[in-house]
């Protein structure tokens, strides 16, 4: 036992120790209260936001894409409603019996049933809709509507499909939309200050993006702005309550300069031959017709094509995906001659009275090399006007021979060669405007005088797209003053290009026009066969692109056995004269004769445009 003194000291000892522990814990609790205070009072705002962020979930609402019209208000691309069959899993307990009930009125494929079974429990947990079947037929919709009261958890929702009303006509001009990858989505959403999130789709195909043509170039305008819907969610992400909706803003409609009728005429006239037509409104540079042939259905591409069908298109020898109008490179051939003539006038190398004796070929003085014309015996004594009408090669060989090549190249770029002349075309090719520097850099070879001579008849290295040829045609028609091309009406970015000249006057332009009218009207004209087709006075210049160089007609007959060796047919034309409103360029690959093969297409397109 312990005595009194010891008991007293024990009590004191106990007292001290207990107080010590209490004080120790008092300090800990003070720290705890300080921590709680700093959470609840000092950093309250941060945690309030965190808590709010926890329980709210933003869902994006897809905007509807803008509609694309032709210049007369005809709809080219529209959003066509399609109907999906949807259930609300959180209100359904037995999926299988629900499905077998539905199957009594609407047929469901094994794949659709499997898809429903696979996703049911997740969608139920999250309180999301489950799409059972897409693209219901009218019959299915009708069947459902009548029996709707029997299926309280089943409903039909409208979703759009992007549809081109003329799926083959506008494949290369308007282009198509397609689905989107993660990176694109991120870019699109971040441009609208949004982040990728769950989305309420307006389109059955989900996110869309313009892949080619105007759908791509004007994607931003057409796209519109995503809306938002804010839900209260629990920790599992289950939707509990809709809090707020900010509606999406539909994309802007686009009124193009394209002309449905002209487009149809171009397409029908090309008739699946490999080639291209570009027609332009001279007044504003608006592109009226833009066809590359053969074509493909953009709706098939957008709404899903089997890999096999896609590969078939991709591997087609005629390359339907290739945009010949904007990306195909062709030698301008004889169509270049008016421009060469203008250069001769500009530099005072020739005048309208200047003649040469065309004996059927031109001999290059330097090495005696012979450059042949298309007519074996030549055109005799010939001036500039007749040289254009009859397309004398010798005249332009000798004219080109007299030029300084760098000056000539610079002059030709005025006409749109070697540069992009379109404001909103989808990756237009610049063609090739060769120069001595270019040749040295790419071929590591010096420029021969013969190269300049070839340039004089649009052969050799020079190449241009049908789009550029249309520009060239328009530039001639408009006497050297022209807007950059555009696919849309009232394009704000439009640039007026004016011809840099000191020496070409209105008389010269008129004579150029007269010469080009003569190509059709004059019996000697290379396209005089078109005289009976045309309904208005049309100025034109045809060309025939030699793919294989031959000395004689007999040689050509041998090589033309292979279709791919045959000459390309080219024509540029504008009308009605004397005050032209429209210009056109036509290329038909391996069509052989510019005048008689490409010519009728050009005339048909111009006729239809002028008639309108």
């Amino acid at each position: 036992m312990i005595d009194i003194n010891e008991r007293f000291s024990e009590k004191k000892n106990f007292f001290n120790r207990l107080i010590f522990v209490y004080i120790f814990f008092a300090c800990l609790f003070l720290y705890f209260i300080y921590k709680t205070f700093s959470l609840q009072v000092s950093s309250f705002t941060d945690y309030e936001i965190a808590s709010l962020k926890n329980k709210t979930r933003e869902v994006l609402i897809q905007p509807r894409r803008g509609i694309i019209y032709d210049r007369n208000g005809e709809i080219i691309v529209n959003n066509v409603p399609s109907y999906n069959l949807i259930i609300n899993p959180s209100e359904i307990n037995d999926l299988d019996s629900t499905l077998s009930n539905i199957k009594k009125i609407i047929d469901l494929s094994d794949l659709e049933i499997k898809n429903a079974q696979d996703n049911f429990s997740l969608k139920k947990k999250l309180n999301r809709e489950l799409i059972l079947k897409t693209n219901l037929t009218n019959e299915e919709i009708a069947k459902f509507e009548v029996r709707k009261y029997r299926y309280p958890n089943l409903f039909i929702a409208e979703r759009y499909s992007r549809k081109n009303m003329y799926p083959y006509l506008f494949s290369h001009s308007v282009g198509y939309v397609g689905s989107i990858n993660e990176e694109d989505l991120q870019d699109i959403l971040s441009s609208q200050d949004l982040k990728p999130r769950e989305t309420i789709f307006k389109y059955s195909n989900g996110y869309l993006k313009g892949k080619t043509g105007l759908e791509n170039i004007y994607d931003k305008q057409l796209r519109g702005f995503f809306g938002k819907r804010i839900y209260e969610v629990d920790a599992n992400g289950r939707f509990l309550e809709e809090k707020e909706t900010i509606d999406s803003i539909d994309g802007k409609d686009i009124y193009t300069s394209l002309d449905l009728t002209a487009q149809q005429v171009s397409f029908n006239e090309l008739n699946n031959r490999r080639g291209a037509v570009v027609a332009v409104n001279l007044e504003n540079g608006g592109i009226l017709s833009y066809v590359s042939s053969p074509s493909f259905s953009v709706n098939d591409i957008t709404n899903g094509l089997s890999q096999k069908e896609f590969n078939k298109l991709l591997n087609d020898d005629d390359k339907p995906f290739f945009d010949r109008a904007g990306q195909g490179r062709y030698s301008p051939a004889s169509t270049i001659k008016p421009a060469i003539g203008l250069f001769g006038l500009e530099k005072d190398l020739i005048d309208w009275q200047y003649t040469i004796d065309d004996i059927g070929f031109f001999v290059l003085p330097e090495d005696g090399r012979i450059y042949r014309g298309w007519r074996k015996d030549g055109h005799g004594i010939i001036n500039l006007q007749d040289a254009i009408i009859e397309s004398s090669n010798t005249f332009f060989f000798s004219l080109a021979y007299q030029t300084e090549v760098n000056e000539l190249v610079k002059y030709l770029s005025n006409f749109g060669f070697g540069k992009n002349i379109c404001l909103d075309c989808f990756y237009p090719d610049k063609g090739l405007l060769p120069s001595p520097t270019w040749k040295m850099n790419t071929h590591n070879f010096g420029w021969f005088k013969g190269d300049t001579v070839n340039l004089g008849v649009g052969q050799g290295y020079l190449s241009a797209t049908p789009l550029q040829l249309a520009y060239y045609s328009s530039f001639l028609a408009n006497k050297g003053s022209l807007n950059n091309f555009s696919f849309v009406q009232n394009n704000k970015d439009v640039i007026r290009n004016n011809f840099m000249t000191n020496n070409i006057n209105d008389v010269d332009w008129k004579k150029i026009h007269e010469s080009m009218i003569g190509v059709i009207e004059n019996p000697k004209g290379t396209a005089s066969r078109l005289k009976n087709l045309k309904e208005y006075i049309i100025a034109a210049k045809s060309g025939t692109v030699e793919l294989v160089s031959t000395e004689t007609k007999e040689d050509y007959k041998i090589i033309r056995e292979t279709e791919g060796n045959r000459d390309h047919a080219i024509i540029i034309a504008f009308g009605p004269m004397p005050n032209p409103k429209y210009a056109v360029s036509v290329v038909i690959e391996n069509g052989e004769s510019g005048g008689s093969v490409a010519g009728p297409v050009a005339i048909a397109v111009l006729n239809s445009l002028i008639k309108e």
Partner: protein
Amino acid sequence: MKKIIDSLKTGIYFDHYLFISITILSLMGLVFLYSASDGNTTTVIKQSFFVIFGLILMFIVSQPDPDFYKNNSLIFLIFSIILILLTLLVGKEVNGAKRWLDLGFFTLQSSEIVKIALPVFLAAYLYDKTLPISLLNTLVTLVLIFVVANFVRIQPDLGTSLVILIAGIYVLFLAGLSWRFIGVSSGIFILSLPFIWNNFLEPFQRQRILTLLDPTADPFGSGWNITQSKIAIGSGGLQGKGYQMGSQAHLDFLPETETDFIFSVIAEEFGFIGVCILLSIFFFILLRCLYLALNARDRFCRLTIGGLSLLFLSTIFINLAMVIGIIPVVGMPLPFISKGGSSLLSFYLAFGIVISMATHKKLMQK
């Protein structure tokens, strides 16, 4: 008449300060639990039964003389250790832990009983030992504490075993553990920390400690609970979001709202003001215990009151420190508030013993 009341008063052992404050706390607990359980009336009714039964138990337990506990403490301890061993053998397994004995009408968490029995036994064992406590007695006591705590640890129930460990050590400390021993053993403890880390902690327990150091490292994995709990507490602000309005609690962001994280629910719905009110009731009880311990009739009573009140204090602190992210998540209920019959009853039991110790005066002092 007055005589009858007086005789009743002297015959009944009752501390109205503790009784009233604990009753208030229990009733507040029911109110909080109703919200934390998302309005589950079954849970609240079940808990109410425990509260009523617990208050009656507390009253009954406070009637016997402290000598009763002193003389029978060994029996109580053996009995509670048998319960623990039974649990290890035939206990009900939930989530990989065997902590419960199924008694048919009630599943008993046996560690909650030994949590009370051990400090009482240690007080009875040490009250007549000379000061300072001899090395032999110290070691005997420590071995006992560690053996009991380890029985609970292997269930596994780290939280409760930790509480048993510190409750035992409190009694030893208050009984007069020599400072020299404290100094040497804490030195050894600190040096053996890496050994404990590698050999005594389960991987998930290590993960919890690492999470504590940087909860943002893995906010959706093991840091989730702490992060969400902090958001719940922080977003409560000064006044709280209102009763049953806590979005963190009701939208399932907060885990274990009825048990370990019930404080976060309270803090979210009642704010800093609510937290302060709750804490002040706890403080009142603790200060009352301190007063009673200092005025207890003998050394056994002092040690028992001191040990049990520190047990109560530590439990509160571990729970609060856990939900606010000061210490790792160990699974510790908030006394009188969290759901769970065993824990609730163990504290009624503890306070019943405290009241008994405080209200029975020695006959010779009368």
